[in-house]
């Protein structure tokens, strides 16, 4: 797995496509397990959290069942503690799921203003 992260609009999907030749696409929890490149990973976590699913379990499955996938995510954890419980849960579970992916990934690239920094 190759993981690309960054703040909203920092160009992580573009850089991922440039480096891997795979165009990241929006996936559901199910299609992500067969996808070549996933965009907006945090949106999948939002759907899982909404139906009270287990985001960390999904992250483990993704690593196991789709080990060569490219994952692109927007960082959403660096703001004010959200007022709504569901938003707090989404924010925290996205962080914890991405910790699992980062731990298992062969590379992690953090993108800031289009420039990638390989942090793993």
């Amino acid at each position: 797995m190759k993981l690309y992260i960054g703040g909203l609009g920092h160009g992580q999907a573009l850089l991922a496509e440039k480096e891997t030749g795979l165009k990241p696409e929006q996936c559901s929890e199910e299609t992500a397990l067969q996808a070549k490149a996933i965009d907006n990973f945090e949106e999948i976590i939002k759907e899982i959290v909404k139906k009270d699913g287990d985001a960390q379990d999904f992250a483990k499955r993704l690593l196991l069942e789709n080990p060569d996938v490219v994952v692109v995510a927007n960082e959403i954890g660096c703001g004010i503690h959200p007022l709504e419980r569901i938003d707090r849960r989404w924010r925290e579970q996205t962080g914890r799921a991405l910790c699992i992916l980062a731990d298992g990934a062969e590379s992690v690239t953090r993108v800031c203003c289009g420039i990638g920094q390989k942090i793993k």
Partner: protein
Amino acid sequence: MKAFIIGGSGNGKSAFAEKVAAKLGGKMIYIATMPIFSEEDIKVVERHHKLRAGRGFETLERPQRIEDVPDHGETVLLECMSTHVANVMFGDGFDELRSNPDTNYAEEIWKEIGPVFEREGNTIIVSAEVTMDGNTYDPATEQYIRTLAEINNHLADAADLFVEVVYGIPLVHKGSIAFLEE
């Protein structure tokens, strides 16, 4: 050592800070700043207790002022500065500060935290990154964001070690974490 650890929500800051504390060793004190309001808070506290269980931390609850911090060479881990700033600005016990519209919160908080950071022994302070969601908030929240940012800047300036934790990966901005591998 004075260590400052920062990161976003769910990024593994606590686990990393505890790893640093365990490596520095000595008598370990955990200062918890979180006030308990709800069931959800109890769950968070329980999770942190579980993470710390068996690692030899004595926990001191400091949901208001950070006072009576042991000063005899212990390794102190204080978590979390973002909560402490919220406690001072919005919580119980600070009516006097809030009755003065000219209160400089960053200055007041630093008067208390600066000496804790400079105390004898190792001090590890954990804080949160809250400045990067691009939202505009009410004036009180905007003031909170700026106050915490100012405190974080002071901490980074005073620290020997400053690490940002990104999804469990430590990014070292100042100092070195080579000692963790020794």
